[in-house]
């Protein structure tokens, strides 16, 4: 038993997107960025997202203004992190928290559009590590572990873009 963790999966969506959900999010966030960016670019002086950030005060609001169109699609995921399957091949990681960023874009060229959505899992109990797999239980099972109760577990393979984003020990660290 290691402790309570959250996993985070950073999903990059760009012009190479092939899955239907990814393509919708790619297209809709590009269209919304294109529309909203005109507010910060009324003289059409800038072409790239980075130029807007570098030159226009408050252009960083475009992250927020664009993320609003992704919300409906994020809700369609039914609070399950996409792409990351357990050892049985099923999506399994519940989430409620996410972070949306525009990584790059170009107001004339959609193929330069690139966003990242970081999904943060709800708390998981990290029991052990088997080869490149985390043995986890869903939710906070620290009390059940300490009581010696049987706990349902799952195996999640370590993989690119999946990381541990927080950790709490099984019991508070002793005071020094």
């Amino acid at each position, binding site marked *: 038993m290691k402790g309570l963790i959250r996993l985070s999966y950073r999903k990059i969506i760009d012009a190479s997107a092939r899955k239907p959900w990814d393509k919708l999010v790619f297209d809709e966030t590009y269209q919304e960025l294109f529309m909203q960016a005109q507010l910060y670019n009324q003289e059409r002086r800038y072409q790239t997202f980075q130029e807007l950030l570098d030159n226009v005060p408050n252009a960083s609001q475009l992250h927020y203004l664009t*993320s609003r169109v992704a919300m409906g699609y994020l809700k*369609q995921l039914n609070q399950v992190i996409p792409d990351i399957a357990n050892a049985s091949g099923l999506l399994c990681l519940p989430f409620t*928290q996410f972070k949306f960023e525009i990584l790059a874009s170009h107001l004339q060229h959609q193929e330069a559009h690139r966003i990242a959505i970081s999904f943060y899992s709800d708390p998981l109990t990290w029991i052990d590590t088997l080869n490149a797999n985390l043995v986890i239980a869903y939710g906070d099972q620290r009390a059940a572990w300490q009581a010696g109760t049987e706990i349902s577990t799952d195996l999640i393979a370590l993989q690119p873009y999946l990381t541990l984003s927080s950790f709490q020990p099984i019991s508070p660290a002793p005071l020094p």
Partner: protein
Amino acid sequence: MERKDFLKRSFSSLLGIAAIAPMITACGSDTDVSPTTSTDTGTSTSTGSTNGSSSSNCSVTPSETEGPFPTKVPANFVRSDIRDDRTGLAFAINITIKNTNNSCAALAGALVDIWHCDKDGNYSEYGGTNMQSINYSSVDFLRGRQTTDANGLVTFTSIFPGWYSGRAPHIHVHIYNSAGKSLLVTQIAFPYDVTNTVYTTAQAYGYTKGAQDTKNEKDNVFSDSVATELATVSGSITTGYTLTHTIVVSA
């Protein structure tokens, strides 16, 4: 199972049915291309999978690791009622868009974004690149998008905006053509007598900051041109207010 395989398998079986049937029809007759589904009664049935109909037709349904098939959803802000959880005096906003390039005729099919602050002078600006929750339901208050009708009109249901230091009360408006190209970014100003009445006598509705600190003629946005940006606002504290305004764009 990989989604690809699942899609490939289901689509090829669908195509198998859908593509072969019309080919047979086409061979029989060049003119008869009417679909086989009858719609005379107003009801139609499209037959799906027969899997599970018998013991020899009973394979395990493939798991779908993608979750539900995504559908195109309008964003939350594409709506007429933009209040979310904000409270204040009832406020109806009617904006008509006209086109100077077409003898000032109504412009239909234009997208109109509006946003304004709440009764306390705050805008919704959640998240940014910070962590957000999928469960927040009121993160986008007092922001909305509508498409103009044949009369160039869009309507919004909102609450009477408050004010914040250094600006006269206002509504932001961004108008786009149907392709999303910006036509105009502007702001709508309020008649002072109305805002002063609200801010000094509608405490019961939560307008507790008192009189605005900036009048239109001192406002750095409106001081040069308020004549064309000043809305007509009618109503009362008890009934709420209605704003009516026309914006002319070059489309």
